């Protein structure tokens, strides 16, 4: 693990992983999308809207997964000053925010035919909305300082504070939701048919591999930025 703290060595490893991840990702999409859209059965209650689930649920999972990576990366950055961990944490934030937004938007598209309204203060959707703002706060804080290192550290602390808060927020929102509207229909309440599992797992795999590809790319961009900054410093001094 400490060998990977060296960005140059990490990039070498990344260069070997990346094509495989990209290839597998494309493969997952190639199989997953047709099955999700065409060959999987429609739900007996929800009809074809259930196909939105193959985007919605993997996106929700990725939104949480990216926050987990962000918190773990931030912790190892603060504790061991692991520079690559910090770069991975920083790279995960926009990806996680994108997936969280995707989860929210597809949730609205699913809600319209099912609930008759695009937005219901459903416990899960509400938690995802808060998660989205946690991402925005992290990204905004990281970029708000003149010294990039200060921004990195402040954002890392915020990620940890957020990860402590996230279960509390989830618990609060669940309680609040049960108080105000006993959920008649929950999005997760559909009985998942065995035939729905292959496309679901394929899409989760595809999103997960997409994450690997983009995160490695983004870490490369950050290493380059650091090198540019160093090169500029060398020139001016």
């Amino acid at each position: 693990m400490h060998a990977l703290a060296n960005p140059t060595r990490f990039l070498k490893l990344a260069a070997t992983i990346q094509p495989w991840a990209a290839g597998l990702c494309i493969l997952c999409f190639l199989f997953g999308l047709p099955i999700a859209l065409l060959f999987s059965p429609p739900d007996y209650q929800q009809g074809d809207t259930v196909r939105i689930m193959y985007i919605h649920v993997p996106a929700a999972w990725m939104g949480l997964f990216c926050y987990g990576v962000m918190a773990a990366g931030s912790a190892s950055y603060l504790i061991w000053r692991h520079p690559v961990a910090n770069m991975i944490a920083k790279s995960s934030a926009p990806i996680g925010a994108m997936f969280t937004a995707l989860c929210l938007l597809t949730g609205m598209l699913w809600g319209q035919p099912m609930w008759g309204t695009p937005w219901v203060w459903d416990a899960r959707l509400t938690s995802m909305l808060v998660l989205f703002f946690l991402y925005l706060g992290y990204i905004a804080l990281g970029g708000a300082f003149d010294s990039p290192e200060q921004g990195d550290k402040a954002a890392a602390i915020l990620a940890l504070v957020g990860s402590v808060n996230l279960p509390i927020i989830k618990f609060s929102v669940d309680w609040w939701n049960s108080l105000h509207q006993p959920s008649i229909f929950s999005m997760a309440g559909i009985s998942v048919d065995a035939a729905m599992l292959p496309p679901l797992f394929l899409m989760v795999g595809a999103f997960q591999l997409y994450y690997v590809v983009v995160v490695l790319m983004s870490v490369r961009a950050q290493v380059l930025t650091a090198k540019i900054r160093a090169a500029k410093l060398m020139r001016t001094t």
Partner: protein
Amino acid sequence: MISLEAVIDMGGYAAFVWPAYALAVVGLGVLFILTARSVKMQQAELDRLRLPRSGPTSGSSGQAGGTAGSGT
């Protein structure tokens, strides 16, 4: 076999299912392109900084970039 109309129609829910997938394509695509472009631009910037020796320093700027990676 599945007919094309049925696929497009999505059991009457075409207006919800297709936009969901379109959003996914746009979201993933845009983020991918932005990231790829930033890598390309940073690489170009770094190459530009390393190549010309017009800077006031006499030392090799190639070395500067090389040590920078481990120094961060």
